[in-house]
């Protein structure tokens, strides 16, 4: 029972914070709300017996990526969106289109939920098939990462190097040598 309560609590927090992220005019608030959403997701990962992913979510996403976003928001001192002009001209903001679009989107969500619930296999509790010990061991995860997935792991290091050089080159002022 407490599992159900925490699942719905974290799910509501994640969905609510994500909705507010795209509902904000001020990017500063968007970034801070996204950190809350990532925190809720990390709670769900703990419930799914994935402690390593939960901690990595907090350290990498909330800690590193979002701080990078915050730095850029502050650095650019970006103005808020020009809301009035955008509301007037955007085709999706016309009242009729918006109403129909919202209705169709809600219908799609309901249908998708019904289709997923109808697949009998997916209604099994998520933890019933396997022992938690098969997935929550960080040692096993490291072993798999460095045996079966060695190539992908090494390729990732090249990707990060390329991204680093690319970011430095792109953000450099023109004319600097």
């Amino acid at each position: 029972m407490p599992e159900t309560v925490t699942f719905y609590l974290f799910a509501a927090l994640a969905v609510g914070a994500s909705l507010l992220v795209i509902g904000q005019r001020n990017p500063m608030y968007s970034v801070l709300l996204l950190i809350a959403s990532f925190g809720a997701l990390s709670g769900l990962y703990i419930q799914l017996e994935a402690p390593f992913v939960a901690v990595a979510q907090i350290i990498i996403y909330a800690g590193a990526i979002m701080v990078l976003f915050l730095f850029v928001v502050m650095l650019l001192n970006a103005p808020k969106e020009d809301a009035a002009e955008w509301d007037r001209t955007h085709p999706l903001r016309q009242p009729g289109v918006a109403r129909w679009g919202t209705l169709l989107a809600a219908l799609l969500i309901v249908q998708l939920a019904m289709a997923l619930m109808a697949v009998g296999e997916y209604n099994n509790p998520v933890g019933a098939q396997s022992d938690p010990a098969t997935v929550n061991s960080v040692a096993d995860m490291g072993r798999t990462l460095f045996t079966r997935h060695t190539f992908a792991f090494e390729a990732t290091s090249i990707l990060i190097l390329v991204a680093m050089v690319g970011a430095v080159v792109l953000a450099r002022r023109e004319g600097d040598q």
Partner: protein
Amino acid sequence: MIPLSHYLILSATLFAIGAAGVFLRKNLITILLSVEIMLNAVNLTFVAFGRYAGDLDGQIITFFVMTVAAAEAAVGLALVIALFRHRESLNPDAFTSLKW
């Protein structure tokens, strides 16, 4: 115990929110944030399926997705800075030089 379908529905909802953000917002930074929401929704699916199957690969692919997301954020934000220097604006409609 939570059925797998509930995790999938939550993940689909988050993905839809992210997609809506990409289409509806007019701020490059918010668009990048919406992409992050979508990546996280997919991560949740991977971890839920991995737990369901009793397999570690779901968590490992999540680890790789996080790494790629970090690289994407670094390059994306560098592009945003370069574009902002050029036009003093974060509105994607300001960058139409290549539009025919």
